[in-house]
C-alpha cells in the first residue's frame, strides 16, 4: 500500500511543515516515507508545494504525475491539482479561501474551512493542521493519535506554547471531514 499526497498553498501557509509532520508520523510508526519540496523560484511569495509518500514498502519514485491525494490550501493550488489527482483519489479543499466547488465527480472531496477553524482556536497560522486532520478522516493512513504524538516530538520548541491548540485544530479538521462523509 502506497499513498502519495501533495500539499499545496501559498508560501507561509505551513505547507512544507505539514508535509514534514506527516513524514515524521509515518517514520515514527514504521512506515516508509519520502518528502520532497518544490524548491523552484516560485517559492518566494508564490505557491509552495511538497509531495509526501507514505508506504509499507521502500519508496521508489518520490514524485508522482498523479497523486492519490491533493491538499489544496488556496485557489491556484486547486486549479493546478484538480485535474491531476488520480481517479478515485481525494481532494482536501480549504473552503475558507476557496469559494468554488470541485467540478470532478470521480474523486472524493472534503471541504474544510481550515482558516476559520484555526482562527477560532487561536491563530489562523495553524490552518495546515486542520487540513491534515481532514486528510486522516478520509484516508486513515495514520491514526489521529499517531499524528498528535508526532506533533509532541517535532513541533519546534519556539511553538511549544501552541501544542495543545494545534492538536485541537487537527481534531476539529478531522471532525468536520468526518461529518462531510456522513
Amino acid at each position, binding site marked *: 500500500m502506497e499513498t502519495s499526497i501533495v500539499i499545496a498553498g501559498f508560501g507561509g501557509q505551513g505547507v512544507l511543515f505539514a508535509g*514534514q509532520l506527516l*513524514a*515524521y508520523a509515518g*517514520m515514527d510508526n514504521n512506515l*516508509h*516515507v*519520502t*518528502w*520532497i*519540496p518544490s*524548491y*523552484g*523560484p516560485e517559492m518566494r511569495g508564490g505557491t509552495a508545494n511538497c509531495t509526501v509518500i507514505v508506504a509499507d514498502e521502500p*519508496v*521508489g*519514485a*518520490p*514524485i*508522482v*504525475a*498523479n497523486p492519490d491525494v491533493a491538499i489544496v490550501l488556496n485557489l491556484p493550488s486547486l486549479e493546478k491539482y484538480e485535474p491531476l489527482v488520480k481517479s478515485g483519489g481525494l481532494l482536501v479543499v480549504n473552503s475558507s479561501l476557496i469559494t468554488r466547488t470541485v467540478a470532478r465527480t470521480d474523486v472524493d472531496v472534503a471541504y474544510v474551512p481550515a482558516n476559520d477553524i484555526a482562527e477560532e482556536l487561536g491563530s489562523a497560522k495553524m490552518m495546515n493542521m486542520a487540513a491534515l486532520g481532514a486528510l486522516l478522516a478520509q484516508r486513515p493512513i495514520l491514526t489521529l493519535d499517531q499524528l498528535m504524538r508526532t506533533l509532541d516530538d517535532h513541533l519546534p520548541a519556539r511553538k511549544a506554547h501552541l501544542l495543545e491548540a494545534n492538536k485541537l485544530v487537527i481534531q476539529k479538521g478531522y471532525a468536520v471531514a468526518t461529518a462531510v462523509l456522513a
Partner: protein
Amino acid sequence: MAKELLKGNVAIAEAAVRAGCEAYFGYPITPQTELLEHMSKRMPELGRVFLQAESEVAAVNMVYGAASAGVRVMTSSSSPGISLMQEGFSYIAGSEVPAVVVDVMRGGPGLGNIQPSQADYNQVVKQAGHGDFHPIVLAPSTIQESIDMMVLSFDLAEKYRTLVFMVLDGAIGQMMEPAELPPMREMNEKRPSWALTGQSKRRLNGRLPDKNVVTSIHLGGDELNAFNEKLQAKLAQITANEVRYEESYIEDAEIIVVAFGTAGRVAGTAVKNLRQANVPVGLFRPITLWPFPEKRLAHLAERAKAFLVVEMNAGQMLHDVREAVGCQAPVEFLGRMGGLLPFTNDIEKEVQTIWRRSEVLALHQQN
C-alpha cells in the same frame, strides 16, 4: 543508532563530518547549498576547517592545497560550479592527491535551472578535466545510500590517491527520507608519508620527512608518458576492484531497465509494477558510473531480449550501455531534460511497448 528524517544535502554533510572530513572549501549554489550551510555550522564546532571561498575556482584550489598536506578534504557544488572547478580537478588528478567532490546536478546547459538533472554524466564520468584521467564516480539513489557512499568516498580517495565524485541530482539533495548516520569516526592524526609540510624543518608524523614533492608538471615527454602509464595502471586496478551495481528481478528478466540515481529509483517502482502485470522486466542500477559495470551488462546481454536506458538527460550513459551490450540486444532510450523527472507510468508504457514488440518478433521467428 535510530533512523532520523534527513534532508539529502544535510545528511551528506553530516556523513562527511562523521567520516572524518577535516576541511571543507566551497561556494554556495542551489540545489546544493544546505550541504555547505551544514558544514559552516559543524566544522567550526569541531575545530575543523570550513571556508566559503570567493569562487569555485578558489575553492577547488584550496582543496588541492589541503589534499597536498595529506588532509581529509572535500568540496561540493552543482553543475555550473563544477564547470568552474574543472582545471583544479585535473591538477588534483595529475598530482595524485586524494579529494572528494559532491556534485548535486541541476538542469543545464548554462545557468539552466535549479531542478534535478543528470545532464553532467559525461562531464564527470568522461572528462572531469583536461588530460587522461577518470575520477571514481559514485551515484547513490537514496539518502541512506548517499550517507554510506560519502564515507566510502573518503576511503576510496585515500586508498587510490585519487579524486572521487559523488553525483546526485537536485531531487536527492532536496528530499527527506528516514536514514541512519554512521558513528563519529576517530580522527587519524597520522599524515600520509607523501604529504607536504610546507617547511623544510617541519616534522611529518614526528620525524623530518624526505623531500616530498606534489606536482602535476612533468616537462619531459618520456617522463610524462611514464607518469601517464602509471596513472592508467592505477585506473585499471580501480576498474578491476571497485565496480558496484544493484540488480532487482534480474534472474529471469527478458527486458532490462538501466538507470542510476533518482531515475534508478523511479525505474525501480516501474519495474515492480510491471512485474505485478507479469512483464518479465528487471532493473540494473549502476552505482559506480566510473568504473562502469560493463562486464556485468555484457553478460546480462547474452540472454536479455532488450534494454531500456532511462536518464534525466538526452542520453549520456546510454552510450556506455550500448558499448557494453554491443550487438547482442537492442538498447532503447527514455530521457527527460530541463530538470524534469521521468514518471513511473512513462517508463511502464515504454517497457510495455518494447515487450510487445519483442513478443511479436518472437512469433515471427517461430513461423
